[in-house]
C-alpha cells in the first residue's frame, strides 16, 4: 500500500469490514442439504465402487442399509440441486466477461488475481461447477433410476443396465472431481469463502477482491470509469 493511502487507512479499514449479504438463509440451508447428501452419496457410492472403500458403507450403517438409502438420498440431493438451479441459473449464465476470464485461468491458478477481469456474483469457475453438477445430475438420475430398480427391467432391455453402470460410475467420477475442487477452494484456498456459506455475509473487501462487478452492483457504487 502506498503512503498516499495511509491517511485513509482507518476509514478504509472500517469500510473493508462492513458486511454484505451474499447468501440468503434459504440458499445456505439448501447448500448444506445438498452438501451433506452429496457426502452421504459419495461415501456409499465409493463403497459400491471399490472393495477397498467398502468400509465407507460400514461407517454409515452397513452395505444393505447403504444400498437402501443411496437412491432416496440421491432424490433429496436432486431436489436440493434443482432448487439451486431455479434460484441461481440467471446468475450462472456464461457471458463474454466469463470468456475473457476463462483465458486468464492460469493467472487465477497462480493466485495472480489482480490480472483477472472483474467478475460478477459468480466467477467462471463457479459457473462451470454449477453447470457441471446440473448436467451430471440429469445423467445420474437417469442411470440411477435404472440401477435402483434394475431387477424390474426385462431381459430384452438389458442394454439399459449395461449403459447405466457405466454412465453412473463415469458421471459420479466427474462430480467427485468438481466436488474436490469446490471443497478445496471454498475452505482453505479462498479466505472468507466458507464463512460466507455459514453466516451468509462477506466483508466489502472480500467482495471487492473476488467479485468486483458484484461489489459495485450491491454497494451501488459506480464502476471505475463511469
Amino acid at each position, binding site marked *: 500500500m502506498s503512503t498516499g493511502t495511509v491517511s485513509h487507512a482507518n476509514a*478504509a479499514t472500517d469500510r473493508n469490514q462492513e458486511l454484505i449479504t451474499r447468501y440468503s438463509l434459504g440458499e445456505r440451508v439448501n447448500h448444506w442439504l445438498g452438501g451433506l447428501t452429496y457426502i452421504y452419496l459419495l461415501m456409499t457410492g465409493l463403497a*459400491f465402487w471399490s472393495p477397498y472403500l467398502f468400509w465407507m458403507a460400514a461407517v454409515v450403517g452397513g452395505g444393505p442399509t447403504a444400498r437402501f438409502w443411496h437412491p432416496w438420498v440421491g432424490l433429496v440431493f436432486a431436489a436440493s440441486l434443482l432448487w439451486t438451479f431455479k434460484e441461481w441459473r440467471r446468475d450462472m449464465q456464461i457471458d463474454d466477461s466469463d470468456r475473457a476470464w476463462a483465458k486468464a485461468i492460469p493467472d487465477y491458478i497462480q493466485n495472480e488475481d489482480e490480472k483477472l477481469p472483474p467478475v460478477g456474483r459468480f466467477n467462471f469457475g463457479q459457473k462451470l461447477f454449477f453447470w457441471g453438477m446440473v448436467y451430471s445430475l440429469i445423467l445420474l438420475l437417469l442411470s440411477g433410476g435404472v440401477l435402483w430398480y434394475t431387477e424390474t427391467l426385462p431381459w430384452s432391455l438389458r442394454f439399459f443396465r449395461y449403459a447405466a453402470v457405466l454412465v453412473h460410475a463415469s458421471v459420479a467420477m466427474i462430480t467427485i472431481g468438481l466436488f474436490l475442487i469446490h471443497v478445496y477452494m471454498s475452505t482453505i484456498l479462498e479466505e472468507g469463502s466458507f464463512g460466507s456459506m455459514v453466516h451468509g455475509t462477506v466483508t466489502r473487501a472480500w467482495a471487492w477482491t473476488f467479485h468486483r462487478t458484484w461489489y459495485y452492483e450491491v454497494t451501488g457504487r459506480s464502476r471505475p470509469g463511469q
Partner: protein
Amino acid sequence: MSQASTELVRISGHAGTVPGAGLNREFQVCKLVDTTTCIGCKACEVACLEWNGYSFSETTFDNSYQTMPETAWNYWNLIKFDEHEREDGSMMLLMRKDQCMHCEDPGCLAACPADAAIVQYANGIVDFQEANCIGCGYCITGCPFNIPKFSPTARKVFKCTLCNDRVSQGLEPACIKACPTGCLHFGTKLEMKELAQTRADQLREHSGFPDAGVYDPPGVGGTHVIYVLHDAKNPELYGGLPKDPHIPYSVWLWKKPLKWLGNLAIVGGLAGLAWHYMRYGPKKVEPIPPDDGRRP
C-alpha cells in the same frame, strides 16, 4: 474339494519333481443336461423346490408347457419349452432345463461390490452368500444368462447353488436325483465333457442331427453346467441360450479400466490440490482502495 487343499503343487528347496502332483482325479464338478432325452416332466423343478425349501409359485399360462417365463428368486430350475419347425416341416419340442451355469469366469462375481457375497469354490460351484449380499443387483447386470433374481422381501439376490450343500457331502444335486430319463448327469467336468461328446457323436452319426454338439461356452471360460443340443449351431432356439456368452463389455469397462482411471484421477486430484496449496497458498482478501479502485 478336500483333496484339492492338501495336494502339493510346489515345494521349496526340493530337488526333482513334486511327488504326487497331478495324480489326483480332476475335482471340478459338472452337471450335464442332455436336452435330447429330456421329456419335460419337470421332476427336476419339483426336486429343486423341495430340497431348497421353497413352495410352489403360481404358474403362468402362455400357451406352452412352461411353468413361468423365466426362473425366479425362489424358482431356480425351469424347463424352457420351445416349438421348433425343422427344415423338412416336422415339429420338435425343444426342452432345456434352465438354471445357473456356474461359469468358470462368472460375470455376477465380477460385478458384485459386496465382500464375499459371491464365492467360487475350487470345484467350480459359484455360490451366493446371502448374508453378505447388499441387494444392489449388479450381479443381475453381470450375468450373461439372466439367472440371478432379486427377492423384494429379502432385498437380496438368489440363484441355483448347484446343491452345494449336497455336493459337499458327496451327494448329487437334487435335480439329478429326480430325473427319470437319465438326461441329467453329474460328475467331474472331464467325465461329463466326455459323456457329452459321446452323446453328441451318437446324435450326429446315428440319429440324423448333423449339427448336434456340446454347449460349454468358452466366452465365460466354460461352464459347470453343460448341454447336449441337437442343434449346437443355434443355441438361441433353446429358450434363448446365448450363442457366445461373455461378461458384458460395459461391466468389464466399468470394473477394469474405468475403475483404475477413476482411482488414479481421485488420488492425482487430491495430490494436485495439496501441491497447489503448498505452491501458491491461500487467496487473500485485499483492502479496498479509498477510491474503490478508480485510480489504479
